[in-house]
């Protein structure tokens, strides 16, 4: 595993949404490089274009200008898997079938994919619910299925859009720890969107802070804390506090800017 090669590169990405009445510049000139096996966190004020960037990387949205390169090491595996922001679990499939979905699409034999899916359900603490339908589950449980589904498909690149946003604090802590454990064993290149500075520092190798709309890259910070990480000891380290402050300064500026922008209806 050569960690110096690039897995993702975005060059001068710009995305403009045209609606009937107006144009929204969601992303403007975003340049980004993610190393192979790196865990990259994206932070930014709401509406700054994080999801849009992720959707472009996933091939679900076409950029208006610019170029995206994703590198596949192993062509057997799917290139990307997405954990979507919000509820994206199929209500018409049992929990286990939801987790199997990516494998089923790829034509993995039934027995094998059931085994894999069960493994990830167990990791998420949901094996008891395998045969239920999602409408019977809580929002937090669905979000965990969402994560399990992406992991089970074993992609080269994981794209996660606020996967723990809907969870309560306790479950979030447990799942962050769990995610760290699974991820540190997998070496998957990961782009992870979050609203939480804590979470970004806990999980990320690097953190990208984006500006308020139009989304540009404001700063990139190296977290540089050793792995495997332990959530509690990280939170009490002086480095954590220092980085937290730095990121908060960047974000505060942007959040205030976004508020003024919408507040006065102009610049």
């Amino acid at each position, binding site marked *: 595993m050569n960690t110096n090669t690039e897995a993702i590169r975005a060059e001068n990405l710009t995305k403009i949404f045209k609606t009937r009445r107006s144009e929204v510049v969601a992303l403007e000139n975003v340049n980004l490089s993610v190393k192979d096996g790196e865990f990259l966190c994206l932070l930014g004020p709401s509406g700054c274009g994080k999801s849009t960037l992720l959707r472009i990387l996933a091939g679900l949205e076409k950029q208006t200008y610019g170029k995206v390169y994703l590198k596949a090491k192993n062509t057997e595996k799917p290139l990307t898997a997405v954990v979507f922001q919000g509820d994206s679990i199929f209500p018409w499939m049992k929990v286990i079938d939801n987790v199997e979905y*990516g494998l*089923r699409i790829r034509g993995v034999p039934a027995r094998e994919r059931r085994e894999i899916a069960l493994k990830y359900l167990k990791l998420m603490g949901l094996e008891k619910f395998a045969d239920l339908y999602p409408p019977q589950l809580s929002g937090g449980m669905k979000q965990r299925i969402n994560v399990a589904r992406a992991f089970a498909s074993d992609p080269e690149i994981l794209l996660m859009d606020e996967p723990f946003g809907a969870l309560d604090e306790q479950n979030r802590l447990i799942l962050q720890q769990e995610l760290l454990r699974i991820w540190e064993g997998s070496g998957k290149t990961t782009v992870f969107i979050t609203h939480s500075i804590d979470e970004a520092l806990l999980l990320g190798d690097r953190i990208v802070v984006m500006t308020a709309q139009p989304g540009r890259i404001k700063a990139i910070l190296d977290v540089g804390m050793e792995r495997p990480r332990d959530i509690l000891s990280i939170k009490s380290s002086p480095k954590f506090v220092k980085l937290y402050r730095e990121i908060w300064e960047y974000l505060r500026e942007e959040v205030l800017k976004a508020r003024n922008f919408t507040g006065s209806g102009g610049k």
Partner: protein
Amino acid sequence: MNAVEQKLNRSIKIEEISGDSDKSQKGSALFLKILSFLSPLFLLLIWEVLAKLNAIDVRLFSSPSRIFAALLPLISSGELLYHTLISAGRILLGFIAGAVPGVILGLSMGLFPPVRALLMPLVAVTFPIPKLAIMPLILIIFGLGETSKIFTIAIGVFYLVLINTMAGVLNIDPIYMDVARSFGANRIQFYTTVALPGALPMIFAGLKLGMGTALLLIVAAELSAARAGVGWMIWRAYDMFDIEKMFCALIVLAFLGYIFSYFLDFIEKVVIPWKNS
């Protein structure tokens, strides 16, 4: 006023307390069942009493006991069953003949914008035409035989199923399509794992509406040029001024409607296990 309020408060309290335990929840469900069983019984009773008191004209409105007396020979002679089976057969055939193309076309129109663009104007223009208004035309084209009756029912069912199915596909949350796309689903996989299951609840809503229309249309279809069927019985009873027989036929129609919707509910539970499970 105060007393009433107190009573209200108390009944609310009782409900709250009883709502806690599973047992009394079952008890109150039973109570509700009994209530909904009692209301028709109560209506029949009033009807009978009014008839007995001569408060209503039994020659026009008949009475439960008279209808019951007329019903027995109709059943024992097999006459009623004969007409019922004939009508049920027509409804079933017409229903299938309308629902199957309705689902297929509705799915295609929902999934493929060109198909939608092509067919939507035709559907929009022809849908509002009352199906009864085209019955004479159907009779001229298909003659007086079975085909014209089945076709009348089929056309009524077809539109309702088609429109509901298409709406079902169009209303699927786009995030599910994104999931399918992001995992690389091809067209057929998308169709079987997202479009069809996602539209099923609406398809069933359409089927149920279609069933109601089928019952409506069978009576009209059997008015003209039929020699059997429940609808024919009604029109025949009208000619003979046989009010009791007419009511017997109405009972059969209600019964048919109940059986068919029970059947549809059953299939829905099997096919859509995720809904209110």
